[in-house]
């Protein structure tokens, strides 16, 4: 029985190594192949890689954790998914079409081209991508450490090359090294193929955890009897913490979801898709399957956990039940606690241990699928949008090696920050990064006004776009811990009412429109050519 987690984890790692090898064998030594897998990805790969990139460990830990903390009030969050699905086609098909025609690799390639080869716009798009991507890589590595602790609770430390490592250290090392290796060796092809495996595991884990919880609580009728017996604040808006007003939920559903669908990793997946038909079918599957897995799967785990292990209100905020955790942030552990406590009772020790291990590996898969996609996208963005500008004479081969070097450096940097934060109580960059990860989507949202104008309107000027993006980034920055104290009362109030990205978006869009009215228009012929390449033309 004790060997079950080792076998499941070993099987998963072996499959990843096979995928990496296959990706490497099929790959060609070109930049387009390394970053976009030759632009030939079909429906299955496109759908699952977009899904796996969209959801990190948040899908199986963070979101049920918020349901556990706040009750039903967080359920409407799942309604962002049909909109995100629609965005895959509405934004993705145009991005994909012009990307194929003009050979774009990064979002910066397309935006800079639209604004007449503007390096400032390219740099701003790279900055927004960087602000979105880096915190996500770090958070996924950290999740690997926590999972290792949970999978092997009986092991305190292991000895490796003469060094004693805690399970947390071992988990972060293993997750980082495996992810780094298959991104390094196989590029987009390995990342996307491993996303297929990880996406299937993720969806299966979400549904399985929900179904198991309902049955562990005595079936559907008994489950809902226990749910409706919960206190009123867990069954109404704005939820137990008072965080989820309808306007905040609506703006998150509208803007955070769109922001996530235009982050660099997703944008590059649109370039990599084989055709508009591929993206159309992916959109349809995404909009139906993913919300189903949330509403009938993993969100029910958080709700059931709240009924069985009710949290309490303490001085620090909403404290989880001692079975779930001892700190406010440990509400995230509700899924792990629920499956570890109830699955073996429901299914018996052997089958229970197998299913618990599969769901824990699914959480690890969710973390790895986000880390690999973001690592790969960041490598492309820094190589194409920054290094290539500084050294325009660089060859394709040189850029490919620089891209690989960036993957190693970013992984090691992220790993170092995770370890420094875990080992030194005075070193707290992780706390800042954790806070920043909530505003990461808000930074990505600042690309939205430019993207919408470029894809659908075509009226902005270069000066308007630059001014809008800078204003939006500054506004979001004011909401972070680095913002000025003088504006804190205003930002705190706005944060309670709306999504942060929406606040930045409003300022960004207003500045873009206003400045564009008073600055010289772009060359009409060039814009017309660009829009011609965007549009679908019937043959």
């Amino acid at each position, binding site marked *: 029985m004790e060997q079950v987690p080792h076998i499941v984890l070993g099987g998963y790692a072996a499959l990843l190594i096979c995928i990496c090898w296959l990706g490497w064998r099929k790959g060609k030594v070109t930049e387009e192949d390394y970053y976009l897998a030759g632009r030939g990805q079909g429906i299955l790969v496109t759908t699952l890689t977009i899904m796996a990139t969209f959801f990190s460990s948040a899908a199986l830990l963070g979101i049920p954790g918020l349901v556990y903390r706040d009750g039903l009030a967080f359920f409407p969050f799942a309604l962002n998914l049909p909109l995100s699905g629609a965005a895959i086609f509405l934004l993705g098909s145009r991005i994909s079409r012009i990307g194929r025609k003009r050979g774009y690799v990064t979002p910066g390639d397309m935006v800079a081209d639209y604004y007449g080869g503007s390096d400032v716009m390219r740099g701003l798009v790279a900055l927004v991508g960087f602000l979105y991507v880096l915190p996500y890589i770090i958070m996924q590595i950290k999740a690997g450490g926590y999972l290792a602790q949970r999978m092997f609770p009986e092991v305190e430390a292991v000895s490796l090359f003469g060094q004693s490592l805690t399970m947390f250290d071992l988990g972060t090392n293993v997750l980082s090294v495996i992810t780094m290796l298959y991104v390094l060796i196989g590029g987009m092809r390995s990342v996307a193929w491993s996303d297929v495996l990880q996406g299937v595991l993720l969806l299966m884990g979400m549904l399985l955890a929900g179904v198991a919880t309902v049955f562990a609580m005595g079936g559907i009728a008994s489950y809902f009897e226990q749910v*409706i017996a919960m206190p009123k604040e867990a069954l109404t808006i704005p939820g137990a913490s008072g965080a989820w007003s309808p306007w905040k939920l609506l703006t998150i*559903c509208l803007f955070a979801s769109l922001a996530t669908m235009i982050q660099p990793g997703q944008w590059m997946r649109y370039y990599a898709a084989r055709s508009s*038909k591929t993206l159309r079918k992916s959109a349809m599957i995404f909009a139906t399957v993913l919300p189903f897995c949330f509403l009938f799967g993993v969100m029910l785990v958080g709700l059931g956990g709240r009924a069985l292990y009710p949290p309490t209100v303490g001085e620090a905020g909403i404290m989880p039940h001692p079975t779930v955790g001892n700190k406010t942030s440990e509400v995230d552990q509700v899924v792990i606690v629920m499956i570890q406590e109830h699955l073996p009772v429901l299914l018996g020790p052997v089958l229970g241990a197998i299913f618990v291990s599969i769901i824990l590996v699914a959480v690890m898969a969710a973390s790895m699928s986000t880390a690999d996609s973001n690592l790969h996208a960041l490598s492309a963005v820094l190589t194409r949008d920054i290094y290539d500008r500084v050294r325009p004479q660089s060859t394709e081969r040189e850029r490919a090696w620089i891209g690989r070097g960036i993957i190693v450096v970013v992984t090691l940097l992220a790993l170092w920050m995770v370890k420094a934060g875990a080992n030194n109580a005075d070193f707290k960059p992780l706390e800042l990064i954790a806070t920043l990860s909530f505003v990461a989507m808000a930074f990505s949202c600042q690309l939205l006004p430019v993207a919408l104008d470029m894809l659908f309107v075509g009226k902005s000027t270069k000066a308007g776009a630059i001014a809008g993006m800078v204003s939006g980034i500054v506004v979001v920055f004011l909401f972070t811990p680095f913002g000025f104290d003088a504006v804190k009362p205003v930002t705190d109030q706005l944060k309670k009412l709306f999504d942060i990205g929406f606040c930045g978006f409003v300022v960004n869009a207003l500045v873009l429109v206003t400045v564009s009215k008073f600055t010289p228009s772009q060359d009409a012929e060039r814009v017309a050519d660009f829009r011609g390449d965007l549009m679908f033309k019937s043959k």
Partner: protein
Amino acid sequence: MNLKLSIWFLFAMLLGAGPGLFFAAGESRTILGLPAFYLWVIFWFFVLSGIVVCASINIWSREDED
């Protein structure tokens, strides 16, 4: 049809995840033993997903020959 579906989608978002929540989620009520709030969200999920499927089959598929 394109415009109609867009308006329906926005309407469903406003009711399912926006101010429409006051109809179902302001008070803790049950329908057939299930929380009304949960049923409300499930209903709008089917509406929103249905609109995406409908748009995909009837409108977006015109771009398939691309």
